[in-house]
């Protein structure tokens, strides 16, 4: 895009100026200092991208002054590109909302939205334009901080939508990577882990001799085991010797004991079978004697025959006595029955007992009195006759006086007779009462009932009396017998009844009879035993004589002696067996027992020494085995290797993080680079070309890193800070121009160059011209210069800028 006209209404020190630019790739503004060259540069950039006030820091507007309060600020630019012509008019007056000023964009005479125009430049902003397309003194201040990033960022800006963010991210990733690992450093964690891993590896290298040590121990153990085997064999040999000598020592004592025992051994003559026979007979005899004693004692307990006879005589009456006892009991019952009958009769007939006591005479008297008193005197009837006679007389008096009289007399006679009868009855009753009182009879007297019962009563009384007499006689006879019985059997219960005593006596008598029989049998047995005892004594005596002893006790003593002899004999046999093999040697040794002791001591000492030596080997062997065992179960190496593995695990993890950070940062670079069509390498080639031109070939190569360095034609590399100021400026110029040219396909705006920036000394002018010509093939180049020579060299028709007023 080319600028064709600049129309300044009011801007800074300039007002109402219009400059038409030639239709050539290079336009030159010529004017002395303060003529408005910088203001014009500002005007162009601010009409394009908006006004900047004084208080906004910008290196370009040191000479900018706002106009008066009422004045309008602004103007127009006319531009053309291949497709169209544009007119941009921007103005600002006090009170406008936008500080950037109001912008009107006309495309080919038609107003269009501003975005239509700006979209052609990737929507770059004021700063981008100023930083890249304008070259003046102010930019030199940035020279020291010039680095690759500036260029990358700006180039990437063209490619990726979020280039700034992505670049920041890339830097962050690089920083993070650097925090994990540094090529030369100790502090980053990965460096520390690597150091630790080295140390652990060294440690493992030191430990890897475990196997060799184990095998060395194996050899030593094997050697010691051989030694121990030899030592143990030697010890076993010595032990055998010691055992042999010890055995001989022990046998010597046995031998001596044997000899002693043999010396005192005198066996007796003794027949075991005979002794046993004698012993049997003696035992039998003893048994017979015991039986004899027992039988004798039984005989002494028998009662006398006389006593037995008396008892028998007493008991001969037993039948009779028992009959009497029966009779006695029968009588007793009869008496009792009679008494009961008598009592019953007395009860039924009160006064019967008294009547029974009456003599015959009294009885007759009583009977007579009772009969008299019992006659019913009908005196009441006669007295009634009196009453009836009177009454009838009274009745008959009216009718018949005679009759009345007869009746009256008859009545009176009846009454008198009744009176007489009554008196006679009362007297009889009184006599009876007196009689009854005298004989304790009931007042009724001797009633018929009493008299009827009387014979029965009297018969019963007589029977009772007779029975009682008989009973008393029996009692006496039995009492006499009882006394007799108690004398014959004093052991029976004296208090018991006779019948019981009799039965007991009979039992005793029976027992006594049996006893007497047993005593007779015992006597026969005693006689038999006595004869057996005699026989046995004889047999025993014969045996004792045969054994040449007098008594059985002697024979027993002899037996004990014989037993002791047998024991001694066994001892002798045992001792002889123990020494049998060595008897000959022992006989010799017995002569010099001390030699044997000395020999035993010497061999035992050797054995002790050998045992000690063996123990020492065993102890060493145990130690070696412990060491070997420790190695065998040693986890040291495994643990060390595991530790290393842990560290390596961490290294891998952290390494992955580091590598991922680095890869990611590189990926962003590459992505941005591809997005910007890999402009950067091309730009670098172009910049080198420009720099070579600007330095007349003294510098060939530019290297862009964090800091820029350049390679001189002699191959030496110079960092930018060591370049002369002029060379530095040339480098910067070359890079920026290359950059602008590189992006020209997307952002094609005029390049504005202030000669204060470039050292266009005469010697280089042809080279500069060559450079600008190259540049102007892509971009319009507008030079602002105060050097007439330069202006003349570049164009025939410079645009003249003149200082106002």
């Amino acid at each position, binding site marked *: 895009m080319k600028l064709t006209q600049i129309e300044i209404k009011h801007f800074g020190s300039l007002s109402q100026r219009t400059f038409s630019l030639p239709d050539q790739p290079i336009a030159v503004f010529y004017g002395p200092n303060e003529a408005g060259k910088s203001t014009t540069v500002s005007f162009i950039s601010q009409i394009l991208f908006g006004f900047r006030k004084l208080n906004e820091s910008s290196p370009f507007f040191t000479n900018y002054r706002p106009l008066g309060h009422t004045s309008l600020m602004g103007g127009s630019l006319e531009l053309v590109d291949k497709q169209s012509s544009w007119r941009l008019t921007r103005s600002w007056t006090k009170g406008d909302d936008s500080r950037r000023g109001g912008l009107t964009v006309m495309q080919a005479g038609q107003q269009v939205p501003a975005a239509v125009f700006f979209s052609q430049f990737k929507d770059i902003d004021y700063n981008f334009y100023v930083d890249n397309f304008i070259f003046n003194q102010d930019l030199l201040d940035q020279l020291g901080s010039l680095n690759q990033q500036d260029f990358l960022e700006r180039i990437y800006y063209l490619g*990726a939508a979020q280039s700034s963010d992505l670049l920041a991210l890339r830097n962050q990733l690089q920083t993070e990577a650097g925090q994990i690992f540094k090529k030369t450093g100790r502090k980053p964690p990965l460096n520390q882990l690597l150091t630790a891993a080295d140390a652990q590896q060294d440690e493992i290298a030191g430990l890897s001799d475990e196997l060799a040590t184990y095998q060395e121990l194996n050899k030593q153990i094997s050697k010691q085991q051989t030694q121990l085997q030899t030592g143990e064999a030697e010890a076993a040999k010595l032990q055998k010797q010691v055992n042999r000598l010890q055995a001989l020592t022990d046998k010597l004592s046995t031998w001596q004991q044997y000899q002693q025992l043999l010396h005192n051994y005198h066996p007796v003559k003794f027949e075991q079978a005979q002794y046993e026979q004698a012993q049997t007979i003696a035992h039998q005899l003893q048994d017979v004697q015991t039986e004899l004693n027992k039988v004798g004692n039984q005989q002494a307990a028998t009662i006398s025959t006389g006593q037995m006879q008396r008892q028998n005589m007493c008991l001969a009456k037993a039948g009779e006595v028992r009959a009497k006892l029966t009779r006695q009991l029968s009588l007793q019952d009869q008496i009792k029955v009679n008494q009961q009958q008598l009592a019953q009769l007395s009860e039924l007939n009160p006064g019967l007992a008294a009547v029974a006591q009456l003599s015959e005479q009294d009885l007759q008297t009583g009977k007579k009195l009772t009969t008299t008193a019992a006659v019913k005197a009908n005196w009441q009837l006669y007295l009634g006759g009196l009453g009836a006679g009177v009454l009838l007389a009274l009745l008959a008096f009216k009718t018949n006086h005679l009759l009345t009289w007869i009746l009256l007399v008859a009545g009176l006679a009846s009454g008198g007779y009744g009176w007489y009868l009554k008196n006679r009855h009362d007297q009889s009753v009184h006599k009876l009462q007196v009689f009854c009182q005298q004989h304790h009879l009931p007042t009724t007297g001797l009633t018929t009932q009493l008299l009827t019962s009387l014979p029965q009563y009297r018969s019963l009384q007589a029977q009772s009396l007779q029975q009682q007499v008989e009973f008393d006689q029996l009692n006496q006879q039995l009492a006499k017998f009882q006394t007799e019985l108690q004398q014959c059997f004093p052991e029976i219960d004296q208090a018991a009844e006779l019948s019981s005593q009799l039965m007991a006596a009979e039992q005793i008598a029976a027992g006594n009879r049996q006893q007497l029989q047993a005593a007779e049998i015992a006597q026969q047995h005693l006689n038999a035993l006595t004869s057996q005892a005699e026989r046995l004594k004889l047999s025993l005596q014969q045996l004792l004589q045969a054994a040449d002893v007098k008594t059985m006790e002697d024979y027993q003593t002899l037996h004990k002696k014989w037993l002791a002899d047998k024991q001694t004999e066994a001892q002798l046999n045992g001792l002889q067996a123990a020494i049998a093999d060595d008897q000959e040697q022992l006989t010799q040794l017995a002569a010099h027992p001390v030699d044997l002791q000395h020999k035993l001591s010497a061999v035992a000492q050797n054995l002790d020494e050998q045992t000690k030596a063996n123990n020492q080997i065993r102890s060493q062997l145990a130690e070696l085995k412990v060491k070997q065992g420790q190695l065998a179960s040693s986890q040291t190496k495994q643990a060390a290797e595991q530790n290393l593995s*842990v560290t390596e695990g961490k290294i*891998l993890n952290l390494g*992955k993080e580091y590598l991922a950070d680095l*890869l990611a940062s590189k*990926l962003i670079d*590459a*992505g941005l680079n*591809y997005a910007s069509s890999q402009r950067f390498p091309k730009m670098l080639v172009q910049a080198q070309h420009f720099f070579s031109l600007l330095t007349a070939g003294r510098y060939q190569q530019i290297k862009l890193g964090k800091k820029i360095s350049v390679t001189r034609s002699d191959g030496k590399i110079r960092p930018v800070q060591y370049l002369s100021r002029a060379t530095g400026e040339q480098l910067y110029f070359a890079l920026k121009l290359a950059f602008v040219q590189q992006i020209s396909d997307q952002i094609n705006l005029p390049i504005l160059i202030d000669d204060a920036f470039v050292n266009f000394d005469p010697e280089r002018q042809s080279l500069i011209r060559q450079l600008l010509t190259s540049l102007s093939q892509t971009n319009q180049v507008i030079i602002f210069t105060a050097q007439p020579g330069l202006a003349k060299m570049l164009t025939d028709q410079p645009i003249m800028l003149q200082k106002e007023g």
Partner: protein
Amino acid sequence: MKFIHLADAHLDSPFLGLSFLPSAEKQNILQAANRSFAKIVQCALEEQVDLVLLAGDIFDSDHPSPASQLFFSQQLKRLTDAEVQVVMVFGNHDHMSPNDLLVQPSQYFHLLGADEKVEQVHLQTNSGFAYSVTGFSYLQNHIQTDLASQMPAKNGTEFAFGLFHAGEAAGIKQHDVYAPFTRDDLQRLDYDYFALGHIHHRQMLLEHPLAVYPGNIQGRHSNELGDKGCYLGTVDETSHEVNLQFIKTGQPVWLELQVELSHLLSMQELTQFLLDQLNQQLTEKTYICLRLVNAQFLSDKEVEMLQDTEYWQDLSQQLKDVSYLVKVNLISQKQLLIKEQDRPAFVKAEQELLTGEALTEVGQDLGKKSAVLAEQLQDKQFQQEVFDLTHSKLQRYLRGLTDETNAD
């Protein structure tokens, strides 16, 4: 005939990246390789195999600890006492002198090619089936020669085993240092079974002739995923056909379990979601390498939480089968959160930079300082993890930019 083929036991090997585990669990995992080895021996005894082939790297180093050696010796004795033939070669890790091997001499134990030369033994089963085992051991940690090509041709009809610890030639000199062989070598030899070791990932290299890597016997880190153990082979003595059965003995197993996020979750929701998702996938005691896909849905705090090993432990306490979370890989959506017009440039940048070459260059300084890193820089999985992390980081930061932009 029955045989067991195992390799790469790496007894004594440390475990990488498990420093955060509770000490009891650490002890447990340190014994894991021994346990697995003992199980294989047990299996050999129970199956009454005729032969056990040990294809190198039984120990993790050429100076194994006596403890480890004694363990190995005891286990070997179980086999030889049972009259099981054991043929062993050393690998690039346990390249040691035969004298350093603490194994009781036995007529049933054979160490092949201890002088780094091909050696052959002729054996026969109890039933009289004759076979040979041909192989070689390492004397140094590298063998640059193709020793397989020097192996003798098959002897008539005798069943032939090849036994060695080696990697297939890649054509790159500095990489071909593990007795590099070619498939042509094996096909030319035409043995009945090549018992190989060195590659920890179980695989059948060739079917005709059979060339098998049984993998290592116990997963030790996130690069050794899946079931680990040995192969039990049954030979048809007439046709010489081999029927292979994998015997799983390694426990715990290392697994990569993937969980996909579909939207933003609170920290609490995220924890519950992870527990549910992981527990669903667990069937046995597992060391889990969590591949959390769509990590762009995570907040910075959640990312921080997920990278905190204490959080792993807390989470592990609620996992089934005493499993442990031991690694978290955050995988962000493939498409970078960048303005659409710039995306092609960044895709191109990713294609250019997320490559082994670029990573090697970026990690050059680091590789010089750390052998383990230098080695890992060449490891495809490690590279991928770095790329995933790079991508995930970028996504997180880019989302920050987007969020800030949105916030404005």
